[in-house]
């Protein structure tokens, strides 16, 4: 490419003439790019970890840049490609493209794995390498407003799980009273809309076949899949979800549930407290909000009604291009201790991939955490969200169809099956 070289030379002349080299003079400043800036408890946790790290490594500092999630991903996608980016950053396990392209440091021999739950480690293991500190873990939960539920004349059974007929009746009753049954929105996230469908599919076909379905080894035209979809469709057609579902953002959907206009239930990850337990003037729930937790309804003749999704959420990884690999790993290890795990559970009010004694949680929201534990007492977990298991076009299709279009009521069961099988 002669021309390319000529042009490149010309461009270099121009670029170099204006470029002033800014050498990385500071030898011991770790850069950290992370989400969670607007979630008080998690932010406090990270800042606590930073302080602990800085105390243990005098002279070294951590510079934290707080991003919102989409901006963070956009910034990382370009910065990492450019061979730049922060030393440590927030990632989730669905971002295998980082690993495929060698952008993450293999932590398998570096991190203090003894204090990490094996299933959480497994989530970050790809081939021979393990790449992330699975800090956050969460389950898909069905939160509800106990007061509203009572007013509608329903009470959850002892096992916290309605059967599918009662649940449909509940939806109908709420809808008849012009109360949105389930708050949910997909305005800025590619996964919450899919909760409604994926939990039904998981229960209906069981964890093993569910995994096959996600990996493209089981057809969506399977009768069990169609049966589950048909039930979900009946919920959707009854008006289970907000009219503004398609544009409702994650943060907005929280407020939709507990402040305005209010809904009976809220299908959300167990990271719910990270927003809801913020002070009310920062978008948190009212102090006296009657929060309850129940299980996603049991489907008739389903393979595994105790099955539910557990996912590794926000994790921290190390940039393969970092100049401070050891320091970066040391920072992760600062978080990978049972004490920090306990702090996480107590303050964030959610699960973690760090081994922690969950029985001794205390603090103002201890009651919430006890209820969460009780609901999940005999649960069987499927680890991973569909979007974490799927890749490429199938993931894009899943996001558009199962996360958006189907719950929005745009597609029939048959269309869903056809479209999903088309990309298998």
């Amino acid at each position, binding site marked *: 490419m002669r021309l390319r070289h000529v042009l490149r030379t010309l461009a270099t002349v121009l670029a170099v003439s*204006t470029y002033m080299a800014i050498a990385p003079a500071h030898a011991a400043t770790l850069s950290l790019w992370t989400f969670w800036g607007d979630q008080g408890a998690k932010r406090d946790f990270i800042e606590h970890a930073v302080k602990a790290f800085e105390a243990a490594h005098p002279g070294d500092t951590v510079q934290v840049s707080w991003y919102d999630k989409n901006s963070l991903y956009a910034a990382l996608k*370009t910065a990492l490609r450019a061979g730049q980016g922060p030393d440590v950053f927030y990632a989730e396990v669905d971002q295998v493209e980082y690993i495929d392209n060698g952008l993450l440091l293999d932590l398998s021999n570096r991190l203090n794995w003894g204090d990490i739950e094996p299933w959480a480690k497994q989530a970050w293991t790809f081939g021979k390498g393990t790449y992330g500190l699975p800090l956050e873990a969460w389950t898909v939960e069905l939160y509800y407003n106990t007061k509203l539920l009572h007013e509608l004349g329903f009470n959850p059974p002892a096992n916290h799980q309605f059967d599918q007929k009662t649940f449909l009746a509940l939806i109908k009753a709420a809808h008849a009273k012009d109360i949105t049954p389930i708050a949910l929105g997909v305005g800025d996230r590619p996964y919450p809309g899919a909760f409604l469908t994926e939990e039904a599919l998981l229960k209906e076909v069981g964890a093993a076949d569910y995994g096959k379905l996600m990996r493209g080894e089981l057809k969506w035209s399977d009768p069990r899949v169609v049966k589950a979809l048909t039930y979900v469709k009946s919920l959707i057609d009854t008006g289970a979800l907000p009219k503004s579902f398609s544009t409702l953002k994650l943060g907005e959907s929280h407020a939709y549930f507990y402040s305005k206009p209010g809904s009976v239930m809220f299908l959300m990850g167990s990271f719910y407290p990270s927003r809801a337990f913020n002070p009310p003037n920062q978008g948190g729930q009212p102090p006296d909000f009657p929060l309850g937790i129940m299980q996603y309804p049991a489907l008739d003749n389903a393979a595994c009604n105790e099955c539910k999704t557990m996912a590794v959420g926000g994790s921290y990884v190390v940039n393969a291009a970092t100049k401070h690999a050891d320091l970066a790993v040391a920072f992760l290890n600062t978080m990978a201790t049972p004490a920090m795990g306990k702090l996480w559970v107590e303050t964030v009010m959610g699960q973690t991939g760090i081994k922690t004694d969950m029985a001794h949680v205390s603090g103002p929201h201890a009651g919430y955490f006890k209820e969460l534990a009780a609901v999940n007492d005999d649960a069987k977990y499927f680890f991973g969200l569909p979007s974490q298991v799927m890749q490429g076009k199938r993931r894009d299709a899943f996001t558009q169809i199962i996360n958006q279009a189907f719950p929005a009521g745009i597609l029939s069961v048959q269309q869903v099956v056809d479209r999903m099988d088309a990309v298998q």
Partner: protein
Amino acid sequence: MGFGRPLGRGLLIVALALYTAFAASPFVWVFVLSLRTTTEIYADPYGLPLPPHFGKFADAWLGSSYDVYFMNSVAVVFSAVAIVTVVGAMAAHCLARYQFRGNRALYFLIFSTLIFPPQVTIIALFQILIEYQLFDTRIGLILVYVSLQLPITVYILESFFRRVPSDLFDAARIDGYSEVVIFWRISLPVAWPAISTTIIVNTILLWNEFLFAIVLISSDSKRTLPIGILKFMGDQSNDVGMVATGLMIAIVPVVAIYVFFSEKLIQGMTAGAVK
């Protein structure tokens, strides 16, 4: 004129008023929202700002690194506009003033870049800036902005320089000045009306630029205002009142420029389209 009849005239005014409401009310609304708290807004989205919370502007400015984004925008936009003005004026002066083979071809080539879809260059620019270690630097963004606004600048200035009588340059040559000094001491001052127009237009367009800013800058500390607003939106999308305040802060400089230079700005933005 045929609109003399009172009825027709009345209808016309009503129609115009309706359109004006359509055009202007979103801004009025956001302005009102920017002075109210989110709690007030949720209670009544269309209420009046009573009492107005002017303190929100300080909160938005200090609480969300808005000052950083704002100063980044100022630095990037002003540098880019300064460079593109000088470089563009030089090229326009040359294309308008000297006859040589390829003059028109070159002009048309630069001019035709106006219609290039940016996606044709964005990916490669990303790679190129990495190659030159200019990715995620304000200098890199400035250089890209200069090349982005070069065609429109050359276009507006060339048509102006073309109307400057060549006798003026000949007189300066006879007065003993070299071509460079003539450009500096005659062309630039004489073309000041057109140059100020391009400065205003380029400032507004770059102030609002989004695509290149989001691709070519990744560090939070180097981002410009449009990206900053978006971050605001992502982090605090519940806090409608605060987002509205953030929007107003972004709008104010543009509105200020508009208020001061409205005629010139309209001239500049409409340059070439009238004929």
